[in-house]
């Protein structure tokens, strides 16, 4: 009984910790533009952080490694860029359109991919993402190598002019925090608990009467939708949808962000995304060495550092408290 009670207290404590952490993160990000931090950098990092959080929902809590998540980022980017530019939709509608497109794609791909497990799941998602990549290379509306350029940012709800840098910044921040809280809620809902149970022992979860495939599919679709949201916002912020976002290197990048920050942790993907985006903009002048360094980080993480930054910190903290 005492053990259960202490676990409940522990859970309550960690929940408080996450709540405080989220509030601190939101506050820091809200004042960041006034502290001399380049807003475009933060917006880029936030889009990738959301992408990585969405990916982490699937890998860290569902135990499913998708090696093709770029297809959701890129698809939403293309659809919302096209909706904003060619149809002249307002930004919020364009973002909804893009996110919905990724959700639909998520249903189709998820239904296929969960038919196999483990390593096959990774290969299947990678192969389908590559198929989507070739589709976007050939489809006329994506303009191939050029991408959809100079997408109008427009007015949010017809009122707020997003071409104002600060207006755009706070819109991105609000979307990110809302999605972050949503992911936290999903993980700590009964659905999230069942998902974790399936990750730990699928056979046992099935024997308890849970339809594992259904849970996995829902997790996949949620992850795809939120990854799509990241891609749609990114397309509006940078006024560009290009092939970079659907290429397999992008799928690898989100795996790296999650692994580096700590898979299965709430804040890990955010930390990982900020580090990788910072690293890339810092090393932009070194050309191909960026790939080498990215790969080396992968190798080091897998060999020596599997819990990631946030995971290692949490383990260190737990040990210190005894």
């Amino acid at each position, binding site marked *: 009984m005492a053990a259960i009670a202490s676990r409940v207290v522990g859970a309550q404590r960690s929940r408080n910790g996450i709540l405080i952490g989220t509030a601190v993160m939101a506050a820091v990000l809200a004042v960041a533009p006034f502290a001399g931090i380049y807003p475009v950098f933060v917006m880029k990092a936030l889009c990738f952080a959301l992408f990585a959080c969405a990916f982490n929902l699937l890998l860290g809590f569902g135990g499913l*490694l998708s*090696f093709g998540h770029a297809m959701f980022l890129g698809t939403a980017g293309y659809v919302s860029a096209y909706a904003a530019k060619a149809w002249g939709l307002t930004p919020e509608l364009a973002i909804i359109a893009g996110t919905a497109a990724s959700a639909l794609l998520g249903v189709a791909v998820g239904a*296929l991919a969960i*038919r*196999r497990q*483990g*390593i*096959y799941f*990774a*290969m*299947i998602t*990678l*192969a*389908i993402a*590559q*198929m989507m990549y*070739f*589709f976007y*290379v*050939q489809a006329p509306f994506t303009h191939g190598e050029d991408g959809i350029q100079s997408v109008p940012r427009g007015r949010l709800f017809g009122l707020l002019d997003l071409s104002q840098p600060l207006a755009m910044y706070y819109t991105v921040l609000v979307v990110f925090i809302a999605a972050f809280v949503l992911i936290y809620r999903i993980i700590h809902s009964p659905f999230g608990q069942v998902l974790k149970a399936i990750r730990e022992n699928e056979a046992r979860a099935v024997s308890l009467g849970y339809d594992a495939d259904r849970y996995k599919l829902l997790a996949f679709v949620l992850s795809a939708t939120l990854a799509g949201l990241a891609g749609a916002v990114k397309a509006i912020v940078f006024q560009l949808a290009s092939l970079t976002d659907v290429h*397999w290197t992008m799928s*690898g990048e989100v*795996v790296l962000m999650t*692994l580096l920050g700590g898979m299965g942790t709430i804040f890990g993907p955010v930390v990982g995304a900020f580090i990788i985006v910072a690293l890339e903009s810092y090393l932009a002048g070194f*050309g*191909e*060495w*960026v*790939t*080498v360094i*990215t*790969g*080396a*980080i*992968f*190798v080091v*993480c*897998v*060999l020596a550092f*599997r819990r990631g930054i946030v995971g290692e910190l949490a383990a260190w903290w737990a040990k210190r408290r005894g």
Partner: protein
Amino acid sequence: MQALFGQLLIGLINGAFYAMLSLGLAVIFGLLNIINFTHGAQYMMGAFCAWLLLQYAHVGDYYLGYWWALVIAPLVVGAIGIVIERTMLSRLYKLDHLYGLLLTFGLALVIQGVFRNEFGSSGLPYQIPALLTGGLNLGFMFLPIYRAWVIVASLIICLATWYVIERTKLGSYLRAATENRELVQAFGVNVPRMITLTFGFGVALAALAGVMAAPIYQVNPLMGADLIIVVFAVVVIGGMGSIMGAILTGFALGVIEGLTKYFYPEASSTVIFVIMVIVLLVRPAGLFGRER
């Protein structure tokens, strides 16, 4: 008609490479339970090894050409593979298989990045060896001798591998270890060494394919990067349970891709993935696979 047979030939050539690469992947997966993402990079290293030998390794006027490369490149790249297995992969066997995939993905990025820094991303030409230049006029088509050689040689290599694994004593150890590693070890077989050598062999097979590919495709740091994803799809279609299955699927998909290029070129880059989706719907374990 000429064009159709031309595409069919290209399809067979591509199929030969799919078969050799997916064979290596299947052999490695069988024993190590690891999907080797560096396979494409190791194929590229094989091609570069051949190119470097021709460029720099010579005794007076005598250059180490194609025939030397066929022997040296697999040995060198295979040895590098063995070092990778001993120093890194062997630490991951007790963990989730996904870590092996992540590690080899990172290694592939490192290798490809280093080669791009060193050699740029444009292709480097590699000459067809003198013995295999020229072609045959078959009446309905012109058959370059080198391409015929690639198809025949890769068929021989694939069938030899199949024979060793399915019909010899060494192969029976290997298959037994795939089923139950501990039991085989208890019988006194040095399983860790067998694992290392198997990985080296699979990697050497990729390098050999790279040497054979060098005169056909140009030698390019990224030549393996996109190819490996197609080979993954081939592996999903065939299922990794059977060696012969990997060989047949590889050749068959190459031919199908070639035919698509002739009849409906827009779909040629996606047809293998579409087939993968259909196979997953109809027979999730793959055509020759069994669920494990």
